């Protein structure tokens, strides 16, 4: 049976229902641009001071707001993804609309894959586009402000939009793969819990951490969770000496792809998704 059409429409309907998936990143980008616009007041004077530094520091200093914009939008995407996953399979049982969805020829398998694609594909894609557009508008704004002082080119020469976009693209894929088990876990909890999905998602993990700490005075599980959330940075990139990632030579896809944690995480993600599919099949409306 051809599943692409139901999958396509299922993803579209997720976007109809959860408009925050695209509205929130755009709203955050607007705030970022507004903040940046305020910062352009007095920018020519500051830029002259920056140009007195050595070239590496010049670039770092000028690049900062662009990095901040990207980081803020990246975090926005993660937060939307977390809350989306926690609610989606729970919400359709709570409002009984699952009975309607199940009356149509869309299998549980397709429905859950469509939902999983939101944090794993759709949100990274939206984040990518919004970051690129935001950074481009920032460059234009700064150029417009600096041009009268003859400093217009100083931004273009130090903020490398093209290599930034390649780094971003790679980083988003690495992040989605690395976080896949987290989203899988949230979807499974959402398909299972009868109430308080957030507590069910967080408290069991916390309980294991506390138990381990009290029983063995170790924190392996807590470290594992931390590694799961932020570990991709050290595996997918080599950080520069000031913590910046601004050069293509810092990307280490080979290291990333040979990290056991990546593949173990993906196996867990698949397990959680299979559980979510089975739960959606078996659980009744709340």
């Amino acid at each position, binding site marked *: *049976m051809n599943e692409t*059409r*139901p999958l*396509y*429409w*299922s993803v*579209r*309907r997720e976007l*109809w*229902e959860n408009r925050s998936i695209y509205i929130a990143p755009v709203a955050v980008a607007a705030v970022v641009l507004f903040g940046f616009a305020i910062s352009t007041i007095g920018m020519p004077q500051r830029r002259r001071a920056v140009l007195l530094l050595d070239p590496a520091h010049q670039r770092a200093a000028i690049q900062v707001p662009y990095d901040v914009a990207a980081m803020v939008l990246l975090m926005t995407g993660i937060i939307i993804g977390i809350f989306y996953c926690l609610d989606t399979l729970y919400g*359709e049982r709570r*409002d*009984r*609309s*699952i*009975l*309607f*969805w*199940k*009356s*149509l*020829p*869309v*299998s549980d398998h397709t429905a859950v894959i469509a939902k999983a694609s939101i944090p794993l594909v759709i949100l990274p894609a939206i984040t990518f586009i919004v970051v690129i557009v935001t950074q481009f508008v920032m460059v234009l704004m700064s150029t417009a402000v600096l041009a009268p002082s003859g400093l217009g080119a100083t931004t273009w020469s130090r903020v490398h939009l093209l290599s930034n976009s390649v780094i971003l693209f790679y980083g988003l894929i690495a992040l989605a793969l690395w976080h896949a088990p987290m989203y899988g876990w949230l979807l499974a909890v959402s398909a299972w819990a009868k109430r308080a999905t957030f507590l069910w998602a967080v408290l069991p993990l916390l309980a294991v951490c506390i138990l381990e700490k009290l029983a063995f005075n170790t924190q392996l599980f807590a470290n594992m969770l931390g590694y799961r959330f932020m570990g991709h940075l050290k595996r997918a990139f080599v950080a520069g000496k000031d913590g910046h990632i601004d050069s293509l030579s810092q990307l280490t896809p080979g290291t990333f792809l040979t990290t056991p944690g990546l593949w173990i995480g993906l196996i867990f993600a698949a397990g959680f998704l299979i559980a979510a599919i089975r739960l959606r099949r*078996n659980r*009744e409306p709340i």
Partner: protein
Amino acid sequence: MACIEARGLRKAFGSTIALDGIDLTVEEGRILGLIGPNGAGKTTALNAILGLTPYEGQLRVLGRDPWSERDLLVRDVAFIADVAVLPRWIRVAQLLEFVEGVHPKFDRAKAEAFLAKTNIKWTSRVRELSKGMVTQLHLALVMAIDVKLLVLDEPTIGLDILYRKQFYDSLLNDYFDHSRTIIITTHQVEEIQDVLTDFKFIHRGRFVLDCSMETFEERYVEVMVNPDNVAAARALRPIYERQVFGRSILLFDGIERQQLAALGDVRTPSIADLFVAVIGNETAQGVAA
């Protein structure tokens, strides 16, 4: 091939037995009413037929096992659970678009034609519609899907009489064509009496009565007995007796009409009266036992 074929269908939730080994055969082209008190097992039976719940025993719907072949079965079955299941956030236009997108047997023009007869606006969200309109909308969707089996679980619950009447009129006039099979559960028994071709009373997970409308009209006779004839009428062993305005109304099973006509005014009972008689007796026996 029968549309639905069940043998020893059983379902228990913990120690509660929802379906106690029922047998059921529904031929193509019938309109079957499943009638029973709350908690009798109606919805459980429908959920089993729709592949929404696992079960014990044998069950084939359109020749398929509904639990293991649900994804295939669902293309030939439409289903209205009750008025509350359409997602509240969705717009009417989006709903049509989505169903058209995923259902190969959906005829959008048909749904649009049906909606044109209502006051439902394309741009409205489901949450903005009245209960009656939501049911009209759901019915419009379902009637535009060319399926072999339509399952309606309390489709008109919470609707006023105008919408209920309209619902069943549309169902009969615009939808039913004798090659489709329809199963309806409802509490409003009187309103579907004219719609059904068959009905079954279900009580405590079992069928207690199973009857086609033709047999129903032949077998059951209600007599408003003249006061002088009450003793004679009771001697014919009515299955149920009630008093209305001081007169006795007796319900008989399988007694000749001519014989009864001598005792008082004869008429065909309503399914509701028969329901009260049969389920009432069942409950009384249950208490006695």
